[in-house]
């Protein structure tokens, strides 16, 4: 029998020379799990000329750094090929990815090609009697699934924002190892042709202190002006959750959440937004969150400061009138 696998690996997500914030969340949690297992914590860094990022990964014991111009840009198939070769050599117990655009692609490919168990969207991870126990967030945050993974190596994706960043930051200088690139890369069949910036010209909602956000509850594009009017009255701007942008009612520059913007306004007034985890990820740091929804069990109320269960179309006219009246008095 092979030696027991004890090490924890973290995939370091970076874009344009900057390590993603959630990587430090994973490093912090990984540190704790590696301690429980009695193994090492390894940060896996793939890219071209990325070794300069290694010193920021001091929470790990070591950094596995693979540099090559063929992996200068992320491709799911290319990075998965590199990871697969590294994992086969290094034999980690646990491999953690952020539940992000890059992470979910890689985790699926890696687990599938190597036959490792995979648990996605984890909010908690524990080791019990040597077994990996993870709690997966399902059904838009309405359900949690506690699951046990068997197998020598386990792949997990972790919901960003669940674990504290601070525990993943350290002044310690990690050992850097630079293994050679596997030959597998010749057969990637995916190439990055360019990176496209978000369209300029529209407003930058990350810089707006007052945001009135609309979700599915707005029902129709024709209903947007009533929310826009309120936003204007409050000196703010309108933004939305993903479904509104998918319908083409607002441009992508107004989308808050996982694949949209992360905002930290002074006020986030959420109208008809149920609060899917992907949306909460982008706005939960707002200073004041007021949520309006018809469903008293909507997850948005779990993170809002104030909530009201009311039809937004019945609330908005008196709300606008009241705001105008009080402003006039002042």
């Amino acid at each position, binding site marked *: 029998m092979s030696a027991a696998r004890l090490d924890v690996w973290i995939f370091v997500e970076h874009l344009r020379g900057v390590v993603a914030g959630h990587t430090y969340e994973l490093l912090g949690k990984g540190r704790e799990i590696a301690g429980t297992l009695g193994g090492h914590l390894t940060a896996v860094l793939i890219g071209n000329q990325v070794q300069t990022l290694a010193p920021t990964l001091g929470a790990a014991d070591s950094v596995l750094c693979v540099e090559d111009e063929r992996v200068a840009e992320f491709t799911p198939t290319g990075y998965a090929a590199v990871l697969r070769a590294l994992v086969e050599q290094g034999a980690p117990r646990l491999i953690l990815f952020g539940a992000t655009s890059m992470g*979910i692609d890689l985790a699926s490919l890696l687990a599938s090609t190597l036959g490792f168990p995979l648990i996605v969207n984890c909010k908690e991870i524990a080791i019990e009697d040597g077994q990996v126990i993870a709690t997966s967030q399902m059904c838009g945050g309405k359900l949690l699934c506690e699951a046990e993974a068997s197998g020598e190596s386990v792949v997990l994706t972790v919901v960003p924002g669940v674990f504290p960043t601070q525990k993943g930051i350290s002044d310690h200088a990690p050992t850097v190892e630079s293994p050679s690139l596997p030959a597998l890369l010749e057969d990637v069949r995916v190439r990055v042709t360019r990176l496209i910036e978000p369209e300029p010209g529209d407003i930058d909602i990350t810089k707006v202190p007052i945001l009135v956000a609309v979700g599915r509850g707005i029902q129709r594009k024709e209903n947007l002006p009533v929310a826009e009017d309120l936003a204007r009255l409050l000196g703010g701007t309108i933004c939305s959750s993903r479904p509104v942008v998918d319908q083409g009612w607002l441009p992508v520059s107004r989308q808050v959440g996982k*694949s949209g913007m992360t905002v930290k306004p002074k006020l986030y007034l959420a109208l008809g937004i149920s609060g899917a985890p992907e949306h909460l990820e982008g706005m939960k740091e707002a200073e004041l969150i007021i949520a309006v929804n018809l469903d008293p069990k909507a997850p948005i109320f779990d993170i809002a400061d104030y909530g009201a269960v009311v039809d937004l179309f019945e609330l908005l006219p008196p709300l606008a009138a009241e705001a105008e009246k009080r402003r006039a008095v002042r």
Partner: protein
Amino acid sequence: MNIAVLLNMVPDLVEELEIDASGVALDTQWLRYVLSESDDHALEQALLLKDRRGARVIVLALDRGDADEAMYAALARGADEAIKLSGIPEQGLGKRATATLFKEVLREVPTDLVLSGVQAIDDMDGHVPGLLAGLLSLPYVGVTRSVDVAGEGKVVVHKEYPGGLVAEMEVDLPAVIGVLSAPQPPRYVPVARIRETKKTRAIAERQAPPVDVQAGVLVRRLLKPEPAERAEMLNGSPEDLARQIVTILEDRGLLR
């Protein structure tokens, strides 16, 4: 070009979710299933490719909930063929088993491109398209917002990153793509046309092949999240609520 679209039926979140007596599964008695939202977009993406570039679109679904309804709607929207896999356990299958099943069926369905929603709300032991690509050793890109043909044997996809940044990637066919959204909202078809489709078109049915799947993931229990702290709930008529909200804004100096 042959495009296979994998349609997955997922619990309708409009309904209250109940955990059954076993504690490890949802109570299916009251459960309604709807087409997974990103699969709806994957279908739209396939139909757009058909409209613009010419393609044959085949939809595949496991027999669960109202899969027939979703498949007839897909045919009415423009899909050319629908194949339903029957003999699925009532509790459904995990995503690992689902991906393995689709892999087996796709052996007999010649396909250049497989499109499926990048993730579904009931994913726990993986996401179907990424797992499938790994099983088939095909190139894969997930979290796309557009897919187009880019010359012979290639597609070009736009993959979303946070903050609105997009990576354009060229992918050699055959390939699997995990769709987040189509470039336009899923097209609407009137109920009358779906009803008409039911009379004139047929869904092919195949017995799901046996799959031996060791996903290595065992559900210990399902639970409903207990929020640590909840919002302070405001009560009253819309006018009362409006006054309270404006007072909160005023107190925080947010009314200018």
